[in-house]
């Protein structure tokens, strides 16, 4: 299980991996959002890592990192947490975690159709 989300106390910062030239959009999550993500993460079943085909240009997934250096990456129906080198992989075929992260983006920060997709 690793140490991912072993504590909900730290602040989380989300990033949408979407741009090429500009820095990817990044934003801080509220405590409520962080707790919701922790809940979603814990509900995901462990999975064997699968190779995710990322697009060359455009949206490639999103990630969340906390102050302890734990980092979740969500793409292609899989969420991976890297905590101090220990990798925990969970299946998320409905991309609930990924969509939940994108849905927390402040208005105007990421392209509207990504947000629309996260809500549909």
């Amino acid at each position, binding site marked *: 299980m690793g140490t991912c989300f072993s504590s909900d106390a730290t602040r989380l910062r989300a990033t949408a991996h979407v*741009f090429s030239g500009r820095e990817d959009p990044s934003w801080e999550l509220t405590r409520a959002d962080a707790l919701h993500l922790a809940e979603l993460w814990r509900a995901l079943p462990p999975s064997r890592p699968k190779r995710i*085909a990322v*697009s*060359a*240009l*455009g*949206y490639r997934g999103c990630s969340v990192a906390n102050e302890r250096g734990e980092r979740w990456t969500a793409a292609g129906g899989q969420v991976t947490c890297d905590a101090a080198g220990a990798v925990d992989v969970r299946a998320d075929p409905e991309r609930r975690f990924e*969509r939940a992260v994108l849905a927390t983006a402040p208005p105007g920060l990421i392209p509207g159709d990504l947000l629309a*997709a996260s809500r*549909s």
Partner: protein
Amino acid sequence: MSLKIIFDIFSGRPNPEMMLNDKDAKAFLDQLGLDKTKTVADAHANVETRLGYRGIIVEQLGAAQLGLGARFRIQGNQLKSGEDAFRIASASLENGLLAKTANVSAAGISSELAALIRSEASAAPAASGASTASAPSTAALLKCATAPIYEPAWWNDTATGGVRQYHNNCYNYACNYRTDTYAQPGRASGTSFTSISCSGMRPAVQGDGLASYSPNPVVGLQCPGKGELAAMVVWPNWDFHWYRLGNDGFWSHKPGSNPVTNLDDSGNVITDPRTANRGRYTEFCSFMVVMHGHVFLK
């Protein structure tokens, strides 16, 4: 018999889906105008590997109709079921499907997403009878003596920590200029870009020392007398992107912190960034010339 309609549009996100009941399913299948004598060769070649809109996937839930498989794909006026491909009478089926507000609403497809699907469907390249990933003719390639070597391994260094790959972007790569700062046009010269548009980016880029390519070509390209050719494109209001010409005559690019590649979003080698599949980076701005010693990035 009902149908599940999947709009195959996303890569990282789940595709929007819609269910058709018996009545709507029958109407949809009738509307296809399928004539199985009208076969086409190699339809939808490489469609599945494209970015962007790839057509409708139909899943027949129940007894399969029309002699088609339980799952088939429609793009434009072509239908592919298993290894068989046919021309159909209807095209733009997306408009009809998305006009059924009850189905759209039940599927949770927002009006914004529906508009995106319509837009992408109308703009999607037609399925052709030829493979889009075939090797291009090398006869027309522009091979410039001053162009840089295509050496992706130098930039794609994740095996050794990834400092070059993760901290240098398309602009660094196109200018062949490593800063490890994710260089931004105008940051070095203090000429920030005013908008993410061609006109808004250009002063910032010129401030960094990139030179205009003159004359701006309508069709043909020529090697610059000095320096290296690069090309700027934008995803209007959201992002910019760059390509560079290598001495092998192919263009290559570095999508953000991702690896350097000489393939476009269709998986084809890039012989001209104006015609490459650039995904959302729809606006081609211009070619520019990078002269080392004259360019400063930060």
